[in-house]
């Protein structure tokens, strides 16, 4: 299928630029929160489980945002969007399971 | 077939990917080569051990035995035979020397190699050296 018609591109580019700036800022905020958790040894202070859950959820959200907005999978057929989604779910949940093993 | 999948990009991935991973492999090889001297006590390789290895090769022991798990699976593992025979070179030498020429009826038989005493000692020395390689504690038990 050839690229969509010029007017279509206009719409898509417009929609692209604005959200990706927001996404960028949100990503930075989440990264800083992860650093904060690490820096102030909150995990040792407040116990590991809730905070690691928080970390994994923020990682998951960051991953989904990157794959949807930055990689542009949000504007593509659903089957391509599912793959990174499932990947992130599996990796983050298995890390959570491994963390709780001991 | 969709045009979204061009042959030139596939070729680039092939060339780029294999070069990339070959460079990684060279890097790991370099690291292994520089850290091996600390692991395989190569300083103990005396001329005797070297000639023992030559004997091991020239009599094709690898044709029946495994050494550190690699070789033929017909006869026992010899990487740790020095330890299995009670850390005693004489037992190994006696075993090789005493192989019957016509073999043991109905059993897996080791040929008689007619080695001189000096050769037997070299071969035992090589097997002793091999048993002292740091193989990340393989095999799982003394049986090998």
């Amino acid at each position, binding site marked *: 299928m050839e690229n969509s018609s010029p007017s279509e591109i206009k719409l898509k580019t417009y929609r692209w630029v604005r959200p990706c700036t927001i996404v960028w800022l949100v990503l930075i905020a989440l990264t800083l929160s992860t650093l904060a958790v690490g820096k102030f040894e909150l995990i040792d202070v407040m116990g590991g489980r809730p905070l690691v859950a928080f970390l994994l959820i923020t990682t998951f959200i960051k991953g989904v945002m990157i794959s949807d907005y930055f990689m542009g999978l949000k504007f593509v057929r659903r089957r391509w969007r599912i793959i990174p989604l499932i990947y992130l779910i599996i*990796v983050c949940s298995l890390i959570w399971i491994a963390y709780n093993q001991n | 077939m969709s045009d979204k999948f061009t042959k030139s990009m596939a070729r680039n991935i092939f060339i780029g990917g294999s070069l990339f991973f070959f460079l990684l492999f060279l890097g790991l090889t370099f690291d292994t080569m520089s850290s091996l001297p600390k692991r395989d006590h190569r300083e103990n390789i005396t001329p005797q051990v070297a000639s023992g290895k030559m004997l091991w090769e020239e009599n094709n022991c690898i044709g029946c035995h495994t050494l550190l798990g690699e070789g033929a699976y017909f006869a026992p593992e010899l990487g740790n035979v020095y330890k299995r025979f009670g850390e005693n070179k004489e037992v190994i030498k006696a075993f090789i020397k005493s192989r019957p020429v016509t073999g043991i009826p109905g059993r897996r038989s080791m040929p008689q190699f007619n080695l001189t005493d000096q050769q037997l000692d070299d071969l035992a020395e090589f097997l002793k050296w091999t048993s002292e390689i740091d193989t990340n504690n393989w095999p799982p038990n003394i049986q090998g």
Partner: protein
Amino acid sequence: MERGLRLPFFNFEYKLILFNRQMFKRFLTQKQSKDDYPPGDLVIWIFIYAELLVFGVLFLAYAFSRSNNLELFNESQKLVNQELGALNTLILITSSFFVVRAVSAIREGKVEQCGHWLLATMVMGSGFIVVKIFEFSEKFAAGISLSTNTFFTYYLSMTAFHFMHVVVGLIILGAIWWKNRRGGYNQEEYTGVETGASYWHMVDLVWIILFPLIYVIR
């Protein structure tokens, strides 16, 4: 003798499981035509999935061997510099943002602007490399190597493996920037830029997972 929608890789499963769903769905959802394929060349996406799989297996190997010798991992993790890790994450996220701007620029035909955004991405990427080299030299100076202990085996092998991917990413972006400078891309033909961008996002996505897992989780 064309048979239905031709998807090279998934065609096999779709034929077995689903009655030809795409044709049916297309008639229903005509409101806004989604692209059939992700941006960039499909081969890069096959490579991306392979790399995600490798890194995924490495992450899980790290996680499960961490739970086996917890004390060693927690102890060794103290030697790891979290600020540098976080700085690198911010760098990579920003470089990803720049490359998105580059793609949207070329989509609007602004070749000049796309070149600038690509340059910005590469500058951030080299920033990541500088920080990484500093971190590695710090570790090697402290006598830490691949064989020090299990934690550092994982730490060094994963970060070095990712580091090499950033280097390759910079080479790809450099090639695209060079082709763009010589007018290789325009509003009609920009698949190359999207391909490089998708690869770069994969490198960023992998680091997003790697940073909390190795640097923070204790």
